[in-house]
């Protein structure tokens, strides 16, 4: 289904905005229409952060996502805020190491990933976002893993490429 609307949310500094950017670049790689829109406002370091990404085979309307086909959350406030935004039958991905409550929805698919622990095993907690992104792409098939890796190579920092790649693959594996 080449039209998906995704919300990434967590704390500032977790790489929420970059997850969205890499996904958008992967969509561009596949010549789809893409948009990326950050929450902008009185945000500050350590505060909450989110972004909306739309990938579609038809022209994109508003870049702001309210009815998300998938939501990825990396903290409790984000779960509280965005759980209700997932469309019926949509996907919710949770970093279960950081979110200390169970989701309430029963009409959506939920994947809980201990992303912090997996990331630490690979080498750094900082790449937990990539673990979650790997799971999202595996589950939604919105872009291919190849395109995502290409986006990472072209637009990410070279010294982190191998580490990021490993994180994406471990996330994908977890979601399989």
């Amino acid at each position, binding site marked *: 289904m080449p039209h998906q609307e995704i919300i990434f949310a967590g704390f500032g500094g977790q790489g929420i905005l970059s997850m969205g950017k890499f996904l958008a670049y992967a969509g561009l790689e596949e010549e789809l229409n893409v948009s990326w829109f950050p929450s902008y406002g009185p945000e500050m370091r350590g505060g909450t952060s989110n972004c909306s990404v739309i990938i579609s085979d038809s022209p994109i*309307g508003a870049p702001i996502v309210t009815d998300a086909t998938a939501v990825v959350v990396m903290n409790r406030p984000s779960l509280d805020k965005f759980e209700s935004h997932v469309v019926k039958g949509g996907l919710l991905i949770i970093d279960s190491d950081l979110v200390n409550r169970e989701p309430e929805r029963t009409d959506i698919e939920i994947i809980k990933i201990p992303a912090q622990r997996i990331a630490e095993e690979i080498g750094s907690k900082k790449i937990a976002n990539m673990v979650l992104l790997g799971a999202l792409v595996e589950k939604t098939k919105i872009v291919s893993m190849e395109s995502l890796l290409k986006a990472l190579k072209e637009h990410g920092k070279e010294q982190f490429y191998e580490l990021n790649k490993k994180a994406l693959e471990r996330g994908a594996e977890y979601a399989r």
Partner: protein
Amino acid sequence: MAKKVLMKGNEAIGEAAIHAGCQCFFGYPITPQTEIAAYMARRMPQVGRVFLQAESEVAAINMVYGAAGAGVRVMTSSSSPGISLKSEGISYIAGAELPCVIVNIVRGGPGLGGIQPAQSDYFQATKGGGHGDYRMVVYAPSSVQELVDLVQEAFDVADQYRNPVMIMGDGMLGQMMEPVEFKERQTTRNLPEKTWAANGLRGRKIHNVINSLYLKPEELEAHNKKLQQKYAEIEKNEVKYELYNLENEVDIVIVSYGTLARICKNAIKMLEKEGIKVGLIRPITLWPYPKKAFDEVMDKVKLGFISIEMNEGQMVEDVKLSVNGRKPVFFYGRSGGMVPTPAEIVNKIKEIVGGAK
């Protein structure tokens, strides 16, 4: 073909201005357009041009006045409250007939208002935020690509008519990233040489003076008449708009501009599935207003027109003037940073169409 890159609207404005040969940028930070200044602060020195953060918006627009008077391509940017501060300077620039580009990435008002997307500066932009009988060309792009194309066009139009030109977007357009391509572009316009510029004698016997002061009423009126002639010329030549889904007869026509027009297109597709036919007039120039678009589609419209805006009803006045009583005109708006959803628009249209059937 240049490769497509993902770029934030605000950064794309900066890059497009550099491509268009903008020599000076004078700015002052305000959300949601600060990235324009940040981008220019980094890029302008790299290409050997001038970036200067002014001490205020008032200072920035007067630096624009000075640079434009010296005959170089110059731009400034701000968001709503900042544009209010710049309005005095814009009036002076229009009075002195100087070319420049002013960007307004609109946020909700009045007053300090909020920082979320809005279209509540329509009156300010099109009816003159500053004083006096002046007009300014106002472009309202709806995508980052169109934004880039129009920034380049704006510099040409400014130079051709010696007039300030505004690019008006909203917080959504400024903040979003979309694929964009910077095309190698040659202007097709025959741009006049800037023989009026106050840039030294350069062999002339009398030095050029840039001024907007005319103390004799006869002279000021003559100046105004001359400006009006120029504005009439712009109205004749520079109107831009898009017609969407208007090949055949429709129940109703939405009039909407900027990013909101994209949301309206989504709503039109949803309504189509329910058998309701809706067209769209998307003004790309807000001034000069595309009145002729209404004449063009008038015979295809069953029920009337609806102006959909992110304010409490501003452009709807120009829609009414353009329709001139020939059909009913409806309005739907959200304000304060609230962005209408396609579903909301669908409901409003169904209400009108249902009520009429």
